[in-house]
């Protein structure tokens, strides 16, 4: 049995940090590669890719790939569309799915067990299997707008938002989290005469910061990375999101520098959103055991 002494404690600490640094480096290298490559001309990028130079700002460095990316595609439009669609979907999803989770956990209604089972069963259905029926439905739905009633939701923001507001996974996350909240609080509020909406709004939601952050990040990632659905429903360039926009850069001869510049630009909102919510996200994982 090894003796614990200040000496080997330091060694263990050093080893632990070395491993953590190694893991951090492995995870951060793709991002560094992307950023560095976005600053290099294509030929240099390809030559550097086989050596450590790929991770260093060396050689003919410039922002030319960024300006070329803007010339090739309406990058700002794509980012705006993705942020708008993702933002609205996340907000609506948190509101609807948390309310659904609340109803499953706290409100006693007939058939909720069966409904929850059905909801969970939807988790195993891949989106690809429902995409075509959903497309047919979306192409026929009515909409009341400034022009009166119009038919078909294609080429709009709503067609990218509405189908993704509620989903089994997000509701399930809320259900699991709410189950662990002290039910005495809810019961006490009921005794005091609070209505369900009041309990939801004033008692349960203020205690749900970590799960809101987790659900927001997961939904954000799903929405921001949407490709198949927007590809099917947006024939007009003005509504396309970033992942469909990425295809603009894959011509017969791929301009890799521009691809890296575009990827660097579209990664910024994801990193910013994650960094903003990371504390609550980690707290949620620690408290619920949810693997993000």
């Amino acid at each position, binding site marked *: 049995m090894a003796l614990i002494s200040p000496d080997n404690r330091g060694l263990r600490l050093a080893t632990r940090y070395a491993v953590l640094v190694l893991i951090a480096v492995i995870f951060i290298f793709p991002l560094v590669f992307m950023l560095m490559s976005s600053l290099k001309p*294509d*030929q240099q990028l*390809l*030559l550097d*890719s086989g050596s450590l130079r790929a991770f260093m700002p060396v050689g003919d460095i410039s922002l030319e790939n960024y300006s070329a990316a803007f*010339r*090739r*595609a309406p990058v700002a439009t794509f980012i705006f569309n993705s942020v708008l669609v993702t933002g609205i979907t996340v907000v609506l999803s948190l509101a609807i799915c948390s309310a659904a989770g609340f109803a499953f956990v706290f409100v006693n209604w007939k058939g909720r067990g069966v409904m929850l089972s059905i909801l969970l069963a939807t988790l195993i259905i891949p989106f690809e299997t429902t995409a*075509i029926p959903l*497309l*047919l439905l*979306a*192409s026929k739905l009515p909409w009341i707008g400034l022009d009166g009633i119009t038919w*078909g939701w*294609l080429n709009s923001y709503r067609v990218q938002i509405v189908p993704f507001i509620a989903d089994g996974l997000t509701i399930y996350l809320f259900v699991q989290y709410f189950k662990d909240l002290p039910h005495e609080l809810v019961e006490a509020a009921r005794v005091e005469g609070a209505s369900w909406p009041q309990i939801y709004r004033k008692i349960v939601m203020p205690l749900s910061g970590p799960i809101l952050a987790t659900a927001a990040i997961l939904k954000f990632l799903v929405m921001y990375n949407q490709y198949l659905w927007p*590809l*099917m*429903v947006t*024939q*007009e*360039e003005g509504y396309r999101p970033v992942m*469909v*926009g990425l*295809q*603009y*850069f*894959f*011509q*017969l*001869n*791929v301009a*890799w520098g521009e691809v890296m510049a575009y990827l660097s630009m579209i990664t910024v909102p994801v990193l910013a959103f994650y960094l903003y919510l990371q504390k609550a996200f980690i707290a949620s994982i620690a408290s619920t055991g949810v693997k993000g």
Partner: protein
Amino acid sequence: MNAFKLAASVAVMAWASAAHSAETLTMWYHGAGNEVESKIINQIITDFNGSQSDWKVELQSFPQAAYNDSVVAGALAGNLPDILDVDGPNMPNWAWAGYMQPLKIDETKIANFLPGTKGVWNGQLYSIGLWDAAVALVTRKSTLEELKLRTPTVDAPWTKDEFMAALDAAKASGKWEYALDLGTAWTGEWYPYAFSPFLQSFGGDIVDRSTYKTAEGALNGDAALAFGEWWQGLFKNGYAQATQDPADRDGGFAAGKYAFSWNGNWAALGALSAFEDTVFLPAPDFGNGPKIGAASWQFGVSANSKHPEGAAAFIEFALQDKYLADFSNGIGLIPATPTAAAMVDNYKEGGPLAVFADYSNKSGLVRPVTPGYLVQAKVFEKAAADIANGADVAATLDAAVDEINADIEKNNGYGH
């Protein structure tokens, strides 16, 4: 009374104005992200819209990699445009599936177009291309001299033995990492487009073109087996890579990694800028003449169009030599007519890329003209990749035949 006259006049003028307002034609094009292509297609549209008052074309561009999926989704949703462009080999499928209708244009205007630019299905013209693409064996004059190789021509191409001797010489010299760059990094349509002509030169094919009802004998007969063994040997014997880094495909020839590169004319100007003495050799003849893939992107009219005559008018307008030349100057592809080629420095007689037009004319072979091609292309791609990675040749080709035949049967022969 005067007020009545005034109102009547206004009404008549409004009616007359409405009667003369141009009908809008929507158009989808695969060139989003390609600045040059977008500029040319927009110029054609502007010119067309300005040339008459009956029609007004409005363009929606899609990135090429997402285009086919977008069209299929649009067709499902009943949302296709009037005019669309289609990759040549996909046209029969789109026509058969009811996405396209026959193209009614004056066919005397396309009499001198390259054969691969005409999209004909079931005896009717459905689409027409402004350009064609061609593949060649790219190398350097200095390489041919160093390895003491004869310079082949499309009329006297290398035989299989000559081609293999060239690869042997390149390999033995030790100067290059690999003798041949086949572009295996480019998955998808590149495989049937670039590699099935080898099979056809051996005497096989992806499907039996006499009936289009079976692949039996075409894809697993003696000629196909010979192709498969030869194909596998390229990788087993270290001439080429079965798995290639995309960066090597894009920059490997210029970096001196490969002695020969099997590549398209869209990459030709890049090769010429890397080495002044770059030459473009014709496909080798494996016994049934040199073969290369033909048919590139073409324009057609969607089945949904309520104004097929307007759509056809636009397509006919776009077929002018000056636009064919503009596209060729812009994206390096082969102009569809000799008269347009004469207007393009790269393709006029003696131009650095003129040989591609010759190769397209003399050795171009369209991919199987059948709606089943979409599936057959994928099956061929998988079989070619599996064989390259060491799978048993006969078993792989038999399995491919079974898969193609099952698909043909499932679709009731695809209307053949």
